[in-house]
């Protein structure tokens, strides 16, 4: 029981440079408290996220992967997040299909003004990941 309580999931968060990354910054400067489980990786646009990034994050031991970008219509590159919505839908369906828990992958729209929403997204994600335990399915086994 105590082991489960101590378990802290590791989240890899791909945050778009223009919105979600600035949103996470706002959460920080506003001193909003949220779990420190997410490792942010800034990317130019959610449309630039290859499904390979997500598979690779899981492969290298992430317990959950978050992709976050600008709201639909607000993309700095006009249509990047529309393209991302399709691609991420496909990879999400594929992961579920082979039997990975649906809660391990998440996508959100967080604007630069939504620091509170960013904190909420991370809090919810970590809460959903904790009962699942460590992700072992896609993780590369340690070489002996």
């Amino acid at each position, binding site marked *: 029981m105590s082991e489960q309580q101590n378990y802290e999931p590791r989240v890899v968060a791909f945050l778009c440079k223009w919105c979600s990354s600035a949103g996470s910054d706002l959460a920080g400067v506003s001193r909003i408290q949220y779990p420190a489980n997410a490792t942010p990786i800034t990317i130019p646009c959610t449309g630039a996220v290859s499904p*390979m990034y997500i598979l690779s994050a899981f492969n290298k031991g992430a317990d959950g992967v978050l992709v976050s970008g600008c709201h639909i219509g607000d993309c700095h590159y006009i249509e990047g997040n529309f393209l991302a919505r399709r691609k991420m839908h496909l990879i999400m369906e594929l992961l579920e299909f082979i039997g990975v828990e649906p809660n391990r992958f998440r996508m959100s729209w967080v604007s630069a003004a939504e620091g509170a929403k960013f904190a909420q997204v991370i809090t919810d994600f970590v809460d959903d990941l904790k009962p699942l335990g460590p992700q072992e399915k896609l993780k590369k086994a340690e070489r002996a």
Partner: protein
Amino acid sequence: MINIQDIRDTARDMLAKGEVRTVIGYRRGSRGMPAEPAFITSPEQADELIWDPTCYHNLSLYLVHDQKILAHLRKASGSPIAIVAKGCDARSIVVLLQEHYFKREDVYIIGVSCEGTGVLDERKLASQLNGVQPTLAAFDGDDYVFTTAEGEKRLPAREVMADRCLECRIPFPKEHNVVFGEDKTGRQLAEPFAALTRFEAQGTGERWDIWSHHFDRCMRCFACRSVCPMCYCDECVVDSITFPVTQQTSAAEKADRVRWIERSAMRSENITYLLTRAMHLAGRCTDCGECERACPVNIPIRMLNNKMEREAREKFGYEPGASIGGSSLVASFLDNDPGDFIR
């Protein structure tokens, strides 16, 4: 019913007139019943061409090979290549054309309709014949007729037909220069995606148990990649040959390299390989089933591609290989694409 003489005459005529440089078709193979790909370059050879239930290969792969050879030799393509194409093969050619891999005038499509029968699944046949080796297979109405040492054996096509043919929605090459056989679109022998639907009815745990068993068995022979006309990238993401390790390579350089996938056959790496392949084929795979047929350990690879095909069809209204001018699945979007999963 397709008369093979029609295909031979077309090939002979075109070669004699010099309209095409090669005809890619099927001929008697060297291991008994199964046909093998044939590359006919002179009119006299045209009579080697055959059409029977063992013509399951997707020959559009060789159009890709041809382009690679031409690029290597730095030669222009010259006269076109004629190719015998079933419905699924013709759709593969459409996808290649859509991606500007070659030009429409570089290829002359001799379409063959699968009519009611599709092509054979050798694994299904083996279980029906109890070890008897057939030497010849032929179409006859809705049946296949096999010649064996113990005489003729007649089987209903739907019992030994490949699953993809049972589920095929369009067994007719819409894109063609000339076409033989009747268009039997809508014959629908089995519900499309029937096997996929059955598999998906299971829970997350059961699905993982089945897939992890398959992923463990993959030995990374890359037969699925070699046989696929869509896997034409010069550098595959799983090959790390672009980063040769020499004596001068420092430890820091090695550490800095992005190794997306390792080549060793471990479960985690196999998953990454097979899922990446499925993603790269989303909206491009035309369900020719060659990957699954080529797999030496019988991994149901087709099911991964089928899953992507159904998502594309049901969620985005996208049909791979439908039109040469259309945009590709992941390079286009609709305003009303589903976004409920996004928080």
